[in-house]
């Protein structure tokens, strides 16, 4: 969130230079085993991380820049790898088990790289017999004259097979992005026809006029809406609901703090409940799907919903404990009338059908991303959304997620992710400690960074812990991924933590210290709860 009105702040300017420095840094340091492509990948990763942290450019711009740099620097069609061919030759047999190979084919550790399949090599140990300038004579039982060896072991294609650039730009049409597109269009139409406000009015009415239950009602409705709509739009809408209530309170009444905090807290937590609730979920689901651990809409709800309910009730209790109500009764008078125009009714039908198909994915088996195209097509076919409405969609968020997914692909593909985890003895840590550590790191990071960015930076590590197998059999990729997604949404200690927090803080009603107090407790209790779910509940409902 940019705080200034114009120009770059000193912090942003620092970030700009640090980020550019990060891009070239891997080429200035001896990084040992990291491949050339891995060095490029590390440069892009460092630049993106710094840009996302300091925001010298908007975070969606960083995402687009990531994709641009990847297609130019890492793709098979980019100038770096366009004409590149891995130099190789068959070894020349002198006698049985004695071979003559080019000097540059022999690595410093006396191994030779045998090409097993395109883009893949295997290191084979050899005994050096004699060196004579251009060639080396070696003894080995594993070399053979029909298997080519790499004749330049320092070449940039060693252990790297570049992706087509279409893999990187294609992330914008990743199924999870399409799922979000469907959600965004439903949300856009809901706002246009005031479905969100009218639903709020109806859903709040059973909660009566007691302040305690009004807060509970506000939190449940906020969470329910933000599970399907943007957390930010929901929070903005609910702020318009609570401002008139707060105006009824005495100026010094502390209950207003609780009331104003209930909205961002519930909006942040509500995003956890469904795959489309909040962008970090998308980053995690996309990465899991890439490694064969796809999770259906239904399964996500089974996993997340019980956690959301417990967190909401806890947060409700916490807010009431800190800021007890001072009056017995509130007047919650929401004006408005349900829109019954044909287009609005069309929206209600499409909305209902889509949500129904989403939550019953396990029963009918149609992937949620396919279902997401129902609202996409139906809302424009029925002219419920027009050209201007489509232009108004949060495309920046789709690009932000696409860039995050793309960065993950690059980190995995270049071997960077595995290299990054290689310096640490993860196996000694134990699975439960690992989950706890990831949860705490995710909450801590996303209090300062965008939730999506946090998920983007952490997911490649989770994936490489899985692919490298260093954690052994106890490691559960799916559950660790879910821990990351949930923990990213539990960060709400600062105004900059999430846009709903920023909106609530901007009303001028809350003090930063109240937000911090409530946010830190929710974050800490939340991570413990996530750990408990990850150990006792999630293994039962996932496979």
């Amino acid at each position, binding site marked *: 969130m940019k705080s200034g009105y114009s120009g770059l702040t000193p912090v942003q300017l620092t970030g700009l230079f640090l980020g550019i420095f990060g891009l070239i840094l891997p080429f200035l340091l001896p990084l040992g085993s990291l491949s050339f492509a891995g060095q490029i990948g590390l440069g892009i990763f460092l630049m993106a991380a710094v840009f996302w942290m300091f925001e010298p450019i908007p975070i969606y711009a960083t995402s687009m820049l990531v994709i641009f740099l990847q297609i130019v620097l890492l793709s098979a069609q980019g100038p770096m790898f366009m004409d590149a061919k891995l130099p190789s030759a068959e070894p020349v047999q002198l006698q049985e088990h004695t071979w003559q190979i080019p000097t540059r084919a022999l690595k410093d550790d006396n191994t030779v790289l045998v090409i097993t399949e395109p883009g893949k090599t295997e290191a084979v140990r050899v005994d050096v017999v004699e060196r004579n300038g251009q060639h080396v004579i070696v003894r080995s039982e594993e070399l053979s004259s029909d298997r080519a060896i790499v004749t330049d072991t320092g070449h940039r294609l060693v252990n790297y097979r570049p992706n087509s650039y279409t893999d990187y730009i294609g992330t914008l049409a990743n199924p999870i992005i399409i799922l979000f597109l469907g959600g965004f269009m439903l949300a*856009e139409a809901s706002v*246009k026809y005031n479905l969100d406000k009218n639903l709020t009015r109806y859903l709040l009415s059973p909660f009566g006029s007691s302040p305690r239950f009004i807060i509970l009602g506000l939190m449940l409705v906020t969470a329910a809406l933000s599970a399907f709509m*943007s957390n930010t*739009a929901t929070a903005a809408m609910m702020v318009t609901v609570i*401002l008139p209530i707060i105006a009824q309170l005495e100026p010094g009444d502390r209950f207003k703090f609780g009331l104003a905090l209930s909205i961002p807290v519930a909006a942040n937590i509500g995003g956890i409940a469904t795959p489309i609730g909040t*962008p970090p979920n998308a980053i995690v689901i996309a990465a899991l799907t890439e490694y064969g651990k796809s999770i259906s809409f239904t399964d996500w709800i089974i996993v997340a919903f019980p956690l959301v309910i417990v967190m909401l009730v806890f947060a409700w209790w916490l807010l009431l404990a800190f800021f007890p109500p001072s009056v017995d009764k509130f007047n919650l008078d929401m004006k408005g009338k349900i829109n019954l125009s044909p287009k609005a009714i069309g929206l209600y039908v499409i909305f209902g059908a889509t949500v129904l198909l989403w939550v019953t994915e396990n029963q009918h088996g149609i992937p949620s991303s396919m279902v997401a195209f129902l609202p996409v097509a139906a809302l424009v076919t029925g002219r419920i959304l027009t050209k201007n409405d489509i232009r108004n969609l*949060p495309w920046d968020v789709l690009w932000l997620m696409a860039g995050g997914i793309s960065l993950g692909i690059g980190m995995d593909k270049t071997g960077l992710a595995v290299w990054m985890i290689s310096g640490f003895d993860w196996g000694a840590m134990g699975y439960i400690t690992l989950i706890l550590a990831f949860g705490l790191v995710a909450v801590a990071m996303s209090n300062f960074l965008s939730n999506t960015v946090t998920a983007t930076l952490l997911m490649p590590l989770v994936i490489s812990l899985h692919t490298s197998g260093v954690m052994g059999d106890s490691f559960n990729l799916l559950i660790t991924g879910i821990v990351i997604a949930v923990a990213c949404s539990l960060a709400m200690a600062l105004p900059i933590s999430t846009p709903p927090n*920023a909106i609530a803080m901007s*009303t001028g009603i809350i003090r930063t210290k109240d937000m911090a107090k409530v946010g830190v407790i929710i974050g800490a209790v939340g991570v413990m709860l996530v750990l408990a779910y990850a150990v006792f509940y999630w293994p039962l409902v996932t496979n």
Partner: protein
Amino acid sequence: MERSDIYILCIEDEQEVLDAVVRDLEKLEEQFPVETANSAEEAREVIEKLLDDGKKVGLILCDHILPGDNGVELLIELHKDERTFASRKVLLTGQAGLDDTVKALNEARLHHYIPKPWTREDLLEVSVSLLTDFVIDEEDNILPYMSTLDAERISESIRTRRSISDE
């Protein structure tokens, strides 16, 4: 409260009246710096200087009877200038006749007419409402204005225009 680059311009030839207007706008001044001018000519200079510095004129409170060009003429001129077209324009006067007022309404798209004498509450309410319109129409990031201006309308604008998205 951080100073924004949106200015309030008060144009009034009587110094005591001008001081009174500025005093009444004190609550807004922390975020919206107030500039003053005693004549249409001086107002033009102030506006040129502000625009040259990359600032914006959000609200113009203008008396009618001024030395040289009168207030209505000035507002019409500013309405025609694309750089001050979006500025919210208020005629704060006791002396504009019906003809002048109608002219201001039709040709300068006057946003509000405050008859003298005014009350502080009225002046603040009108200024807050017009500045809210201005920031909603003109600013990308409207969050910093929420606590000073109309929070309900700014939230509603975030909801409908999606100027802030989930990250």
